[in-house]
């Protein structure tokens, strides 16, 4: 009897660890192959061998010397940093009102926020494009991507509200009794208390901007000076047809910042992912 339980334990251990190794291979091997290819010579990329004969690190510096690459980096940073900042500033008061004020149409407002959050961006793209290009004359620039974020982003509002609901109201009530206005309560008391939440929302928004492909494709495709990394990367592949090595090096360079940011802010990020899904 005891022996049977012991064997079962061992078998269970073996099964779990075999599956774990298989999973790690599945998730990690693509990165390994991309990396190995990125340091091959042009000639070797056209052959079936998987291990670089000669480690060509200069592929990476070649990428930075490619015309355009630096501009795409700069544009992506401008879009991601300014978009994230504006989005936080504009979404926070809205989320606070939805979480803490009592007013008649609150339920309706919340439903509207959730509905816009779920909406594919393609639904309203035609009039938006006409608005930005014909009425505002701003197509071929980053402005049509950045300006809307100054008016709140549904996902950020929703996420911040979820965090704000978890604050104990005693603190806020105490401040109110002391005669503190709502704006001061928000800035002086609430913001310091929900710093992790703000970090998580900022990360999500930053990643969203960094990864955005559809927006730059619609608004900036006509002007390479305004391209972002996501959009430029695709044209990079087009220009280097058979040079998979250079394309893979560029691809890894686009992935790298996101992964670096993740390692520095892992906790806030995981907390945010959990809160979007299972809280409640």
């Amino acid at each position, binding site marked *: 009897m005891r022996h049977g339980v012991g064997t079962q334990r061992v078998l269970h251990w073996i099964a779990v660890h075999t599956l774990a190794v298989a999973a790690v291979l599945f998730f990690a091997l693509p990165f390994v192959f991309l990396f190995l290819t990125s340091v091959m010579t042009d000639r070797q990329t056209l052959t079936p061998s998987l291990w670089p004969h000669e480690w060509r690190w200069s592929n990476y510096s070649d990428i930075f010397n490619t015309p355009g690459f630096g501009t795409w980096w700069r544009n992506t940073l401008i879009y991601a940093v300014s978009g994230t900042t504006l989005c936080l500033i504009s979404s926070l008061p809205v989320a606070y009102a939805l979480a803490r004020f009592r007013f008649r149409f609150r339920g309706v407002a919340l439903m509207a926020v959730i509905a816009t959050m779920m909406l594919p961006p393609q639904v309203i793209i035609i009039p938006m494009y006409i608005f930005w290009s014909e009425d505002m004359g701003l197509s071929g620039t980053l402005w049509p991507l950045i300006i809307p974020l100054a008016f709140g982003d549904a996902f950020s509002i929703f996420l911040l509200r979820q965090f704000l609901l978890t604050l104990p109201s005693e603190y806020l009530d105490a401040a109110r009794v002391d005669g503190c206005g709502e704006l001061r309560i928000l800035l002086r008391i609430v913001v310091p208390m929900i710093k992790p939440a703000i970090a998580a929302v900022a990360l999500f928004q930053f990643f969203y901007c960094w990864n955005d492909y559809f927006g730059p494709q619609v608004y900036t495709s006509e002007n390479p000076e305004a391209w972002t990394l996501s959009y430029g990367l695709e044209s990079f592949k087009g220009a280097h047809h058979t040079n*998979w090595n250079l394309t893979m090096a560029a691809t890894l360079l686009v992935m790298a910042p996101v992964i670096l940011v993740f390692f520095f802010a892992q906790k806030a990020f995981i907390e945010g*992912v959990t809160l979007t899904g299972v809280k409640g």
Partner: protein
Amino acid sequence: MGRRADTTSAAAPPGRPAKVKAPPGLRALRRRRGARTVAFLSPWLIGFAVFFAYPLGATVYYSFTHYDLINPPQWVGLRNWRYVFEDYPPLGKALRNTLWLVAVMVPLRVLFGLGVGMIAVRLKRGASLFRTLCYLPFLAPPVAATIGFVFLLNPATGPVDQIMDTLHIPNVGWFNDPAWAKPALAMLAVWGIGDLMVIFIAALVDVPREQYEAASLDGAGPWQRFRYVTWPSITPVVLFALVTGVIQTMQYYTQAMVAGKVASGIIGAPGQSFEPGYPQGSTLTLPQLVYQEGFSSFDTGVACVLSLLLFGIAMLATVLLMRRRAGFMTAED
């Protein structure tokens, strides 16, 4: 400015106020609070009007016009709508592909997310390294990840092809084969299940340990423990993952578009315009059709009809989610 009088919920119980006429002081207070609420909501109120309500109305209007972005829009009544429903084969293709993605890709993602989550909670040593490794692909920017996968799976020189050859498994054309392009996209989607893994780990850790012990004492095997202890307590999360997966699939755009462009090799080649759906419409989705009609064919009216169809389908999925999760979405205490 005079916000000093705010006592809000602390003073009065939150129930419905009695139906007596409010004294003037209270009415002034209410008005002031109303103004304050509007002030806090104003960024979003403006945003909602300018970047949602107006363009949605305009989309409806344009769907009844012929508009090539050069000459002013011309009213054509139901012509665009009739054209899309009666004489527009790409729509059927796009809807069938979306249905495939909903029926295959979404459940596969949930299955793998749950599976990897279950492995993660059973590991003792190296658990956090395991989680990080499985999570990383989720972070890879979609354009970069897609180009990477087109390379990995490309015929002749791709590493997957090499491995299949060594194992004597006949390779398929993946992104270049109409029958295998969607499975290749599904594989890419399964690679990025980090988000689902995280929420499943959170759900699995919440299952009370005593229940497993009790089940073991009653002689339940691993499958029975999963079926009668784990499953009942994680079904809400599984449902949530499925429904959000369906909503995301309605927006499926970037990966299909980029995979088609890179695999077909027609990006940036002068004089060539890319038609989404390569190969042979097998990766076409509704959002790509909107882009194609609006920005390649400049048929704004038809693009707007397709936009509104997309809107209807996405809203349907959203209503489903809200009914399921109504308690969570609006709960306040």
